[in-house]
């Protein structure tokens, strides 16, 4: 027996070598089992191709089930260039047994092993695949014979130092004569493939069921097919180079950069949610175009819409991508969600990420993958994609369609919002018979972001964010904003007019009072003048009346003072007499007054 610490031979299949901690056991036999169409043959053949092409390790492919010509045809969808490899480093043995063969008594695989032995020597083969061994074993008359042949095979492999992959079909029920339990016991590594339909979309997975003498990742892992063949979604060894970058990357939209305190943080993920037609793609396209202008490699992942259409639509809002596509800076991945399951898309995207090494990535819209397959698997795919992009330190903008205007709807769908660093929500505000686009930054980790709702204006010249008008706790947009502004302006003008009118009025009033004061002053002066005049008259009168009395006394010659007659009263002039008359007691008045 070889030492426990066994050497491994890489399959070159992305993901599988991670799960198996390095590949298949070298110079041992691995069993690959699964239902038809789950990817067993691709797995085996791709391993052979990778070894022959990348490490110059020739291999032999024994086809029990299909004609090699058929296999070549199927493999043509991948970029393996199988015919060229088959010329000098891969040998295909057509091991289909003729259906017209008559069986008489026991037989064994002696003939095949003799051929393989010779070919191994000729090619110096290191690898061998027995594809569809169940077809062969079904011909053996009894389980005992099958077991004997398997042992013969194993011994032969052990003698020849070949790393072997045996694939076998299993049906739901254990059919055929072979106990697969026994086969699993015999080999050093067992890989199970499984495929099922989830909401009419095939979902394939593989599981390493056994790996003698080695650690491996337990559990089922999704797999998909890309241009280079099978890709297995392995949990990435968390390369947590989480040196949080403080570099700001422009969103390609100056107004938005301002709202985000300068842009997106390098390596951050941004979710843009919104109802249909809220310009999610335009924002994403701006970001992609800006990245390319900075000379950064960019990957634009779109679902259910081809790169050409997206390019054309973006062009209509002034975003030019064609030159960047031509220069190779920008790559498109367009996936159809009605054909492939989320896992398959993910594996292809991940393969493309490794190939293109983009610094900026757009996924538009990620929500499309939730339409197909099970929601739980779509969620897992979304999360894994974001973590993968984070590992690669790519700055990513993801759009997601939400029904209605409630941004919270996203949290019930893909639940990306919880792991995204930034979350921008685009909505329609319907007010006054008008739909206007509004942009809100729901969250932005590590950024002093604006918390204002802004109006998004879209025109052929590009995007702009308008200051929104808030009034009475309501954000106003579009015509309403304009109307409200106009109304407010006129009201302000009116207030101004009112004020100046009041001002003038008050000035008038003041002037009036001043004028009245002046008048009164004049009156006062007149009064005073009159008073002075009157006072002087009175004094004169007193003097004259005193003299008259003296004269009278003198004339009467010491006669007692007699009642003055009316005559002298009549002689009095001026105001005094008038006063006396007014009083009505004219007879006595002169006496008293005098």
């Amino acid at each position, binding site marked *: 027996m070889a030492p426990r610490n066994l050497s491994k031979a890489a399959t070159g299949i992305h993901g599988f070598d991670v799960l198996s901690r390095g590949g298949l056991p070298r110079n041992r036999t691995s069993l690959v089992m699964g239902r038809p169409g789950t990817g067993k043959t691709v797995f085996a053949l791709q391993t052979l191709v990778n070894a022959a092409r990348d490490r110059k390790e020739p291999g032999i492919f024994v086809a029990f089930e299909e004609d090699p010509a058929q296999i070549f045809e199927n493999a043509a969808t991948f970029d393996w260039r199988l015919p060229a490899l088959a010329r000098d480093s891969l040998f295909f043995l057509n091991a289909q047994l003729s259906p017209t*063969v*008559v069986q*008489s008594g*026991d*037989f*064994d695989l002696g*003939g095949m092993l003799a051929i393989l032995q010779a070919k191994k020597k000729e090619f110096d083969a290191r690898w061998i695949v027995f594809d569809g061994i169940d077809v062969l074993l079904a011909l053996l008359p009894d389980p005992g014979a099958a077991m004997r042949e398997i042992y013969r095979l194993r011994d032969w492999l052990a003698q020849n130092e070949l790393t072997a992959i045996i694939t076998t079909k299993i049906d739901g029920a254990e059919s055929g004569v072979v106990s697969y339990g026994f086969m699993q016991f015999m080999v050093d590594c067992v890989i199970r493939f499984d495929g099922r339909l989830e909401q009419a979309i095939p979902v394939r997975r593989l599981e390493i069921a056994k790996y003698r003498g080695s650690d491996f990742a337990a559990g089922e892992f999704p797999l998909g097919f890309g241009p280079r063949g099978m890709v297995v979604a392995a949990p990435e060894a968390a390369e947590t180079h989480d040196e949080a970058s403080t570099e700001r990357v422009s969103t390609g939209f100056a107004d938005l950069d301002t709202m985000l305190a300068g842009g997106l943080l390098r390596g951050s993920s941004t979710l843009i949610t919104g109802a249909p037609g809220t310009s999610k793609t335009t924002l994403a396209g701006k970001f992609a175009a800006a990245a390319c202008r900075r000379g950064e490699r960019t990957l634009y992942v779109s679902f259910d819409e081809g790169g050409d259409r997206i390019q054309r639509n973006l062009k209509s809002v002034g975003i030019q991508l064609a030159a960047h596509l031509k220069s190779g800076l920008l790559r498109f991945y367009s996936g159809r969600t009605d054909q492939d399951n989320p896992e398959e898309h993910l594996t292809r995207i991940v393969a493309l990420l490794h190939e293109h090494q983009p610094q900026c990535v757009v996924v538009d819209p990620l929500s499309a993958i939730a339409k197909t397959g099970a929601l739980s698997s779509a969620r897992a795919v979304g999360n894994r994609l974001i973590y993968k992009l984070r590992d690669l330190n790519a700055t990513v903008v993801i759009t997601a369609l939400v029904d209605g205007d409630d941004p919270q709807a996203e949290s019930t769908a893909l639940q990306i919002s919880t792991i995204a660093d930034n979350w921008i929500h685009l909505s329609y505000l319907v007010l006054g018979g008008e739909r206007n686009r509004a942009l809100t930054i729901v969250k932005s980790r590590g950024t002093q972001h604006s918390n204002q709702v802004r109006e998004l204006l879209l025109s052929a010249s590009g995007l702009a964010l308008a200051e929104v008008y808030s009034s009475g706790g309501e954000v106003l947009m579009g015509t309403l904003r304009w109307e409200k502004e106009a109304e407010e302006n006129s009201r302000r003008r009116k207030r101004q007019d009112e004020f100046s009118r009041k001002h003038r009025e008050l000035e008038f009033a003041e002037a009036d009072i001043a004028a009245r004061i002046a008048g009164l002053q004049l009156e006062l002066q007149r009064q005073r003048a009159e008073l002075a005049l009157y006072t002087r008259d009175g004094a004169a009168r007193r003097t004259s009346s005193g003299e008259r009395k003296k004269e009278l006394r003198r004339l009467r010659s010491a006669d007692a003072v007699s009642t003055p007659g009316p005559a002298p009263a009549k002689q009095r002039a001026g105001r005094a007499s008038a006063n006396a008359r007014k009083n009505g007691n004219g007879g006595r008045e002169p006496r008293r007054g005098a």
Partner: protein
Amino acid sequence: MARKLSAKARCDAKSTTVVVMRLFIAGRGPNSVKAIANLQAICEQHLKDSFRLELIDVCEYPERALAEGVLVTPSLTKLSPGPAARVIGNLSDTGSVLAALGVQPRMAG
């Protein structure tokens, strides 16, 4: 025609048609030994001398096996007369071997 002709191959061009056969065996394993013995008995009893047999050990001549698509051994190929036929196994079932060769069984002891 035969590159490696076993000592057992006999030829007799008498009245009856000659059956031309090739038997592929792998080394000296039990199935090889049994197949040779069974075929010998069948030939002696049912074909008398009107047959030609080429015996090929695939361990020595794997390219022959590859050329003729012989994967399991023992494997008996009838080349003529009539359509080619192949029987796999150690030829323990005489009836099916004769049927494949297109030979009427002879009941003579």
